[in-house]
């Protein structure tokens, strides 16, 4: 059977001749009626000749035709069949053909968009990510949170109160912790930072530190050196909790290593480091004309004390003879007692430290009585009264021992004494008193320790005891704490073991200090020692003081109450 198949797709028309009893219909290229469309099954159906053309489809579109074929249509002229998007129509066959079929695509597939059309979001930018808006947004957020809100107080903006809130506000401007004592004020920046774009004024400091003294006294020359200096010039806040100033040597040394170039009249020697570059100590001596400072050097320093006191004798390793305790060995602490502060010592006093051994007895054969220590005249009066009394009431034994002649007190004799006897007794007593007094002062007792000048006149002799100088502070500008050095032997610093004169000033030299103390840099085996360990800041009025009055620095509470 010869069949002409005309296929029309759009405007294109194709013809082909098929010689077969049946025609397969489908998408498959092997089909006689080829329908190249994805909507058409691979093998859609068949057209067979059964006394005319019949279109048949198997179950769910298949060329396997069984009895259960679901579609079977006899074809007629002018009655086209719908097969998927195609229309198949039987037409009158042209000459030489048994049949003719016309296949037309009536529902063309809508053109599917190419990949290029679906490839539109190929960059991050096309997804809506943005640089510009993010930049604006974040920058404005920072400006708002960290500037607009916090600036409320200092610029006096309407949200003034909010800007001082603890959770946000100007606390974000705090560059670092303030020192511990200032922390109660820290949350309120305005306590010190009063006016915008102005330095903190001293007034803000002095509101609390009312009693702080001048750091640089008017005696400091030239005053221009410190002109314009504010508290904050040296005291920098927000630099940590410990201190507002630096306590190493650099601050001091920056001027003191070449003081003359800063102040022509300066007397202090140049210094840059305790270990390497520090002048010998100056010892302050009490002298007749007042105080005098002498620099320690090759020659030993001496100060006239008007006291005869050889340390060597008292510290004799064999001991000294005590009238009470026999032979005893003395050490420093027998006489030098710490004062209340424990940093220094009580002054030496005759009754407390000396008199136990150095008794002031004047007639030991008869009595243990002592003359009072102090004025010579008082002592002589006591002696005179003693012998007068003895001459009046003395027992024969005492009388004999005291006056060296047999006898007894005038009033002990029977009967009234005659005027001559009275005269004799008085003369005996006063002669003896004068003799003992002179002996006591000039030979036996006073002279042992004191420098005594005798002024002889026709009637009597007067004695002048030179006043004893006891210097309690040879180095008044140094902060020295004996308590802090108690593990050290006294003799390590004070060499008095062989001192034969009280004029020897046994103050340690810088060499002795340097045995243990280094400078501002660490040295093995030494204590790092900066200027402020021993010196105060420019304050001539705070010499070593056993009872220092601390400056009052209480916080003025009313200022900070909300």
């Amino acid at each position, binding site marked *: 059977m010869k069949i002409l198949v005309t296929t029309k797709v759009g405007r294109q028309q194709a013809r082909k001749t098929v010689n077969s009893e049946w025609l397969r219909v489908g998408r498959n290229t092997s089909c006689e009626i080829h329908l190249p469309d994805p909507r058409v099954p691979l093998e859609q159906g068949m057209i067979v000749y059964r006394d005319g053309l019949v279109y048949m489809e198997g179950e769910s579109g298949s060329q396997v035709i069984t009895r259960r074929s679901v579609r079977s249509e006899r074809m007629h002229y002018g009655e086209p069949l719908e097969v998927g998007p195609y229309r198949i129509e039987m037409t009158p066959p042209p000459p030489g053909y048994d049949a003719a079929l016309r296949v037309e695509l009536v529902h063309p597939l809508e053109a*599917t968009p190419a990949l290029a059309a679906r490839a539109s979001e190929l960059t991050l930018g096309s997804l809506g990510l943005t640089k510009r808006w993010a930049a604006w947004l974040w920058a*404005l957020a920072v400006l708002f949170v960290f500037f607009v809100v916090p600036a409320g107080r200092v610029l006096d903006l309407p949200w003034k109160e909010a800007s001082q809130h603890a959770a946000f506000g100007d606390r974000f401007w705090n560059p670092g912790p303030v020192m511990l004592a200032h922390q109660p004020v820290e949350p309120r920046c305005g306590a010190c930072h009063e006016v915008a774009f102005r330095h903190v004024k001293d007034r803000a400091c002095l509101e609390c530190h009312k009693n702080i003294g001048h750091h640089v006294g008017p005696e400091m020359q030239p005053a221009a050196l410190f002109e314009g200096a504010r508290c904050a010039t040296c005291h920098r806040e927000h630099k940590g909790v410990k201190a507002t100033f630096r306590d190493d040597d650099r601050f001091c040394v920056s001027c003191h290593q070449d003081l003359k170039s800063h102040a022509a009249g300066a007397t202090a020697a140049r210094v840059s480091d305790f270990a390497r570059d520090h002048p010998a100590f100056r010892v302050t001596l009490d002298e007749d004309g007042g105080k005098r400072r002498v620099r320690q050097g090759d020659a030993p320093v001496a100060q006239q004390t008007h006291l005869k006191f050889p340390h060597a004798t008292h510290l004799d390793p064999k001991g000294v003879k005590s009238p009470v305790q026999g032979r005893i060995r003395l050490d420093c602490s027998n006489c030098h007692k710490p004062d209340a502060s424990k940093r220094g010592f009580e002054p030496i006093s005759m009754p407390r430290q000396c008199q136990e051994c150095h008794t002031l007895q004047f007639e030991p054969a008869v009595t243990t009585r002592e003359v009072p220590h102090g004025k010579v005249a008082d002592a002589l009066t006591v002696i005179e009264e003693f012998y007068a009394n003895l001459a009046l009431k003395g027992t024969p034994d005492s009388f004999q021992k005291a006056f060296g002649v047999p006898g007894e007190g005038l009033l002990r004799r029977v009967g009234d004494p005659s005027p001559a006897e009275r005269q004799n007794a008085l003369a005996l007593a006063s002669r003896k008193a004068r003799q003992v007094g002179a002996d006591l002062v000039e030979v036996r007792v006073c002279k042992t320790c004191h420098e005594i000048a005798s002024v002889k006149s026709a009637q009597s002799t007067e004695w002048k005891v030179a006043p004893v100088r006891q210097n309690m502070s040879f180095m008044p500008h140094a902060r020295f704490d004996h308590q802090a050095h108690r593990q050290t032997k006294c003799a390590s610093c004070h060499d008095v073991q062989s001192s034969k004169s009280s004029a020897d000033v046994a103050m340690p030299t810088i060499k002795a200090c340097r045995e243990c103390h280094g400078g501002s840099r660490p040295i093995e085996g030494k204590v790092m020692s900066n200027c402020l360990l021993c010196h105060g800041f420019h304050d001539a009025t705070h010499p070593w003081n056993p009872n220092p009055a601390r400056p009052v620095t209480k916080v003025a509470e009313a200022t900070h109450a909300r």
Partner: protein
Amino acid sequence: MRHYSILEYARFRWFKAAVVVSLLAAAVYLWHDPPIKPYGGSWLGYTLGTLGALLILWLMYYGVRKRRYRSNVGTVQGWLSAHVYLGTALVVIVTLHTGFELGFNVHTLAYVLMLAVVVSGMYGVFVYLRVPRAMTENMGEDALEQIILRIGDVDRDMRARAMGLPDELLSLIDRSVNESRLGGSFWRLMTGVDLGCPTAHAVRAWPAMARRLTGETARVDKEVYGLLLQKHQMLERARRDLKHKAILDLWLYFHVPLAFMLLAALTVHVISVFIYW
């Protein structure tokens, strides 16, 4: 001709400059004797701070300069080289300016933002040194547009040939042609992976489905499968290319906004310091 990267520009001129500036700053910092401790308010602190702030402004000006195609002030490569090296030196200068004093405040915020900008920039340099090579290896002489057009061709061809294949295979091809896509989401751009890609699915499912084909259909199947593999490979290359471009882009989405945030924080830092002088 050997390719010189921006890092090597003018025989490391800006590298040397950055090293000199950093060492100089460090030397002065060590020599400097500040009151109490090093901080931003000593004379050296102000000097380093001013230098750092000017440097930040200059570094940000690079964003303007690179768009001024008519400018003759240096070359853009030179500017970028300087931008990279001086931006790194900025870390040294600003760190010394802080005196290693950090806290919970706007000053440290500015410092941290500065570090974030520099770190994102360094990542950018890293990306610019690595990714272009990978891009060239991936794409060869091809451009993305060409590949997309070629995929279109393959799609047409493949689809026409697939008409002769069973329905389930045709539908795989159909989905591959109609539903395969490029880009479209942040995840897909950044990873270069499309988990639901119908083409990849078709490639995986194909062998099992086509096993029983014989004769003419088997021959068609072979052709179509070849085209499918070809398309899949091209898709993967295109996706890798998009991924590379996204990586080259992404860091700038951090670098630029962070830089402007830094500019704001820096402004607040400077003003607030002088308000509370």
